[in-house]
């Protein structure tokens, strides 16, 4: 929790309304995302109960499982869900583009667009991860055959769930997290997980304060939970009798009637969340995207293309657990992504950068003096090294000699030469610039900041950091258990 975010939360309490903590949108939003609101059966191991899914507000399809404990019906649900999700995914595999790799010596291809799944909350992500886990090892043949699209769905859902762990990815987004990335409410992080209350704070209905709207949203009888867990009261009072009635139906007419009743109950539970999802999406769409959002979405498209190719070639399901090497590589990848994402958000958004200004990792100042023609001839060859002096009111805690970058001039390095506190509590900073000024000993026009310009400089760097090298799985060191024996889930693993 940064102090700036905490301050925004305090302001939200006082104002009775959520306060912005971002000035731009930090995630990519697809033109046609697939919104998925799942419900699970209480007490069971991720047994689907119902879902509402679709890629436009008016196109929500309701899927239900009338007997959630029946494993055949669970697979029938998975097959129905696959019939919606898989065509949606395939719809993004039409056009691709060439991307130069290996310094232009080679090209690879990636799809121009990628699928995007939206679920209400992190528990929804977990639901999809477990649904993927329970279906991806299924087989269309053998003792417990399932429709062939079920294991394929499992592999895709696992892909989505793994991307959701990747910082900065927009492939599978939990709405509560997307919203809290941009707004701070006057309630705690635990309460922010409740989508109706969160949206109550951000966009209360007319005549209500955010706090009042959030309080109203806490009553499960008027505002059903956003899933996957259902309201226990709903389970006991309405759902259980309806499921029993369906099970007890002994003729077709009664069964159809009981099914319709179940559908009605579950639709009533899902529709409010469904509508909130599109409202949340509308709020996010109203924000302008950050400059580096598109670049991160390229990474999502790369990952999508790679997984589609993998499924095309042999399609082996993701393992139950990573081996030692794969786990180390994944951790490294995630850490790099987290670091890059943090830097990019700060570069894109002055309000995020303000957090670093508060901790002394960045400062904003006005250029007082500039010497754009300064040449350093102390080395073997003279080099252009202009200097600028800035005056800032921010605390400057970076040590002299460190290299800084300005988000508005990312190609130029600035070495911190002098830091001089002035009498009135401000700080004078002298920077020596290199790079981004053209060739030769004269800076190209506009490449050196001019007197009067207001600039931000930071120790955060979004320069490319090469990835670490890991041994192959066959070369796993003995310290990490040695090369793994191949392990796969038993194909007869039961689902129920």
């Amino acid at each position: 929790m940064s102090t700036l975010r905490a301050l925004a939360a305090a302001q939200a309490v006082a104002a009775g309304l959520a306060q912005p903590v971002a000035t731009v949108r930090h995630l990519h939003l697809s033109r046609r995302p697939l919104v998925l609101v799942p419900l699970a059966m209480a007490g069971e191991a991720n047994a689907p109960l119902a879902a509402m899914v679709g890629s436009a507000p008016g196109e929500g399809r309701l899927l239900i499982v009338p007997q959630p404990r029946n494993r055949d019906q669970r697979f029938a649900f998975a097959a129905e869900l696959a019939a919606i999700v898989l065509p949606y995914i395939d719809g993004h595999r039409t056009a691709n583009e060439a991307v130069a790799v290996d310094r232009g010596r080679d090209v690879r291809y990636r799809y121009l667009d990628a699928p995007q799944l939206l679920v209400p909350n992190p528990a929804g992500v977990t639901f999809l991860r477990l649904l993927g886990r329970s279906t991806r090892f299924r087989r269309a043949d053998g003792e417990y055959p399932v429709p062939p699209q079920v294991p394929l769905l499992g592999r895709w859902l696992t892909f989505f769930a793994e991307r959701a762990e990747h910082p900065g990815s927009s492939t599978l987004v939990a709405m509560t997290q997307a919203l809290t990335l941009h707004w701070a409410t006057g309630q705690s992080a635990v309460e922010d997980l409740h989508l109706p209350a969160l949206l109550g704070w951000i966009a209360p209905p007319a005549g209500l304060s955010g706090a009042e709207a959030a309080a109203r949203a806490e009553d499960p009888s008027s505002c059903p939970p956003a899933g996957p867990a259902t309201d226990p009261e709903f389970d006991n009072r309405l759902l259980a009798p309806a499921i029993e009635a369906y099970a007890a139906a002994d003729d077709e007419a009664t069964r159809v009637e009981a099914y319709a009743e179940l559908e009605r109950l579950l639709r009533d539970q899902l529709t409010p969340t469904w509508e909130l999802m599109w409202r949340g999406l509308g709020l996010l769409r109203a924000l302008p995207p950050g400059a580096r959002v598109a670049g991160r979405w390229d990474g999502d498209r790369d990952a999508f293309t790679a997984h589609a190719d993998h499924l095309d070639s042999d399609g082996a399901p993701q393992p139950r657990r990573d081996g030692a090497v794969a786990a180390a590589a994944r951790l490294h990848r995630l850490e790099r992504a987290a670091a890059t994402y943090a830097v990019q958000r700060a570069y894109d958004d002055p309000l995020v950068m303000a957090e670093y200004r508060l901790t002394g990792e960045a400062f904003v100042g006005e250029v007082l003096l500039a010497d754009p023609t300064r040449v350093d001839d102390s080395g073997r060859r003279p080099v252009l090294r202009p200097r600028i002096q800035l005056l800032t009111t921010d605390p400057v805690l970076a040590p002299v000699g460190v290299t800084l970058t300005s988000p508005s001039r990312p190609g130029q390095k600035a070495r911190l030469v002098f830091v001089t506190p002035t009498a009135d509590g401000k700080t004078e900073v002298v920077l020596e610039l290199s790079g981004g000024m053209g060739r030769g000993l004269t800076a190209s026009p506009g490449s050196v900041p001019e007197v009067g310009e207001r600039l931000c400089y930071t120790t955060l760097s979004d320069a490319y950091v090469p990835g670490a090298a890991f041994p192959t799985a066959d070369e796993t060191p003995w310290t990490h258990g040695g090369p793994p024996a191949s392990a796969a889930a038993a194909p007869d693993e039961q689902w129920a």
Partner: protein
Amino acid sequence: MTGTEQRLAAIRGDAPPKRHNARTIAALTGNPGCTRRAVLDGAGVDKPALAERIGFPARFGQSRFAITRGNTFEAQVKADGGAELLRLVAERLGVPVPAAAHWTDLGGGDDLADRARRSATLLTEALPPTGSHSDEPAGAGEPSPVGEPAALFDHPMLGLAVAGQRVHLEPDLVAARLGGRFHVVEIKSFPVIDGQADPAKLAAAAVQSAVYVLALRELLTARGHDPHLVSHEVVLVCPRDFSNAPVAHLLDVRRQLLVVRRQLDRMDRLDTLLVDVPADFTADPAADPAILAASLTRVPARYAPDCLASCELAYFCRHEARGQTGALGRPVREALGGIADVDEVLALAGGETVTDPERAEAAALLRTAARLRADALATA
């Protein structure tokens, strides 16, 4: 009746004290710094009724689907005289699977004291006399090869002193005696998928099991046996992956034992807490709601958002804590320099002069934060 007991009875009202169970005892460890909670729980106040009465009903409903599933799984695991359970537990403990085990169901019967006596007698019957384990380091070492046969005890009636009162615990658990040591066996119906369980459910199960370990140890101590005959490793039996097949895991509950022990000790010293409680303090659910609410505010609570998941009174305390930074979560409060009051935070951020030197640093931080926030919002 001692003075403390009389005070607690007066606080509680006419009703008999509400019985604790392992879940409520486990919940005590959630927010140990909360005086209001310690007093109410110590007095055995009917907190759900109290919360309802003052207009902040708790929301701890349980779905009957979950209850059914739990009961079914437990019955399945315990079927056939526990043969499957014995195999699971023995294999997980790494001891040879006994050909047969003695299955004793200590359930049934109405008289609690009788049941507790019977449990204690049967549980300790075949144990070696005190002393034979005294040279063994606590909690470690090989289980001593004692000759008595493996035994499983279902529904043992255990007791624990909570706030000076004897609390009877009726766990659905099984105490397994294998290789001369007892292990608490806890059967839970949440799944363990690829070796991983829901962290919140796992944590709750660990604290509950620790309560049973503690109670079982007290029972042995009371009968003159070495308490460390009860292992700090609990056997957790859960459904594996997405199936109904049970799988056993070992759970080290040493840390939870310390936490539970500490909180129980604290509740034993309720009289020291009661010194600061007003003499006419009442939490009797039969009293007038306005009087109740006013009375409650005189005993300080320490509300944190976590309370919502564990304390029946949480919605009342949350309402009371409006405008406090702690209600937003402790990290928020810390990030705001520890200032407790939202209005004060905003006043300091707005540049109000600080008289208290201890707040100077927080004030400077908040002022800078406010300036930077305004600056960033203006330039965007």
